């Protein structure tokens, strides 16, 4: 608790000073944000938004120290974006960031989909949803593909019941849990349009942009490095080529497509090594060559 200099005590001293830098060091918030910057490629608007939220929470804390009213901020969020743009990954990090900021008490993430919230017969939904909410208390509840909760085509659908319970808890127990809804942009729009209660209770709508080609290449190298593989120079060029072609094809899912491409390249590399001389050096074992990538179906289409 570091209040700087002369203005140490004095209940409502107007010149009371709070050292934000010290507060920042104390809450250890720099570390998760630096990790976010380092580990996640691209996503500039997302990172910007997270920095804003972090700064806001820090200031809220400082306000509390000098005795200004600090209503607990609403931190429910909606993550929208195309497939494979890192929504789930960021949600995981979000839980730890909010925990270190002291906003959620435990900092765990409970990840659910419609199946975990909505029951199959009358009277089954409420206990199921409440059970999930109880587990998520003190942490972050991540609802993936949230728009499936609402099925307008079936008016007897139990999803509506789950939505009502969720809304109630989001409103009344803001200090106990943070709800993050995630899904594809257009379908989330329809979902919010038909459930205006959700839109107004969610303070932060964060849009995940698609990755550009350079970012996808960097992601490819990161994914390869995670598995202790590396791309040779020619393979990197092939990968860049692959990304351009893959993007034009249907069901392109950003980083997820790249992960799958790397996985398949690893299979082909294994085949190549087995079919070859039968002797592989350490270097051979970890290098993905251009031919492993060029063999992809994407290049023949």
């Amino acid at each position, binding site marked *: 608790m570091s209040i700087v200099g002369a203005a140490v005590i004095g209940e409502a001293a107007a010149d009371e000073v709070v050292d934000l830098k010290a507060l920042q060091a104390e809450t250890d918030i720099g570390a998760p944000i630096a990790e976010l910057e380092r580990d996640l490629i691209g996503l500039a608007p997302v990172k910007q938004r997270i920095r804003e939220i972090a700064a806001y929470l820090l200031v809220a804390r400082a306000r509390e120290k000098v005795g200004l009213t600090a209503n607990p901020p609403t931190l429910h969020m909606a993550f929208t974006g195309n497939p494979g743009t890192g929504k789930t990954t960021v949600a995981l990090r979000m839980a730890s960031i909010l925990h270190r900021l002291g906003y959620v*008490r435990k900092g765990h993430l409970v990840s659910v989909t419609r199946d975990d919230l909505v029951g199959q017969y009358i009277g089954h939904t409420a206990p199921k949803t409440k059970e999930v909410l109880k587990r998520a208390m003190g942490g972050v509840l991540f609802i993936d593909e949230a728009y499936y909760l609402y099925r307008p085509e079936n008016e007897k659908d139990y999803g509506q019941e789950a939505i009502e319970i969720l809304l109630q808890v989001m409103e009344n127990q803001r200090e106990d849990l943070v709800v993050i809804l995630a899904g594809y942009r257009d379908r989330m729009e329809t979902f919010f349009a038909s459930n205006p209660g959700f839109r107004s209770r969610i303070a932060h709508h964060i849009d995940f942009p698609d990755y550009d080609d350079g970012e996808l290449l960097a992601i490819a190298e990161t994914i390869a490095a995670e598995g202790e593989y590396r791309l040779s120079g020619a393979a990197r060029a092939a990968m860049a080529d692959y990304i351009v072609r893959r993007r034009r094809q249907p069901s392109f899912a950003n980083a997820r497509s790249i992960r799958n491409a790397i996985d398949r390249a690893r299979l082909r590399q294994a085949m190549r090594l087995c079919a070859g001389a039968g002797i592989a050096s350490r270097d051979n074992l970890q290098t993905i060559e251009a031919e492993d990538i060029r063999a992809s179906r994407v290049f023949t289409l």
Partner: protein
Amino acid sequence: MRVTQGAFSFLPDLTDAQIAAQIDYCLRQEWAVSVEFTDDPHPRNTYWEMWGMPMFDLRDPVGAMQEIKACRAAHPDAYVRVNAFDNTRGWETVRLSFLVQRPAREPGFRLERVEAEGRTIRYAVRAYAVDRPEGHRYGPAREQRS
């Protein structure tokens, strides 16, 4: 007569904040917390009614506190207790159990003497409350069905 069962029962009744702190401790030990209630205060009564399932994989006491409050609201005249079950191999038992609600008026127990063979005296403890049927044992005397 104040019933003293379970942990902390010789202390003043715990406040909700203290109960939450105890539950938080239990959850940090990875024990499963459950809520039970009864209106038969006999010390050998091990079969309390369960208020819902034991709460596995809770991380925060708020969820358990909700259940405690719901149970109190539904059974304002009953004893309510919290159990914390440790499923670690070798323990597999309740590690902590304490009352979180007791009826406003606790009439206590009487000692019954029964003469057995050869004028041996056998003793039994009987709660005054159980003279009335289940569900009518505490709180305002309600009309009883005949």
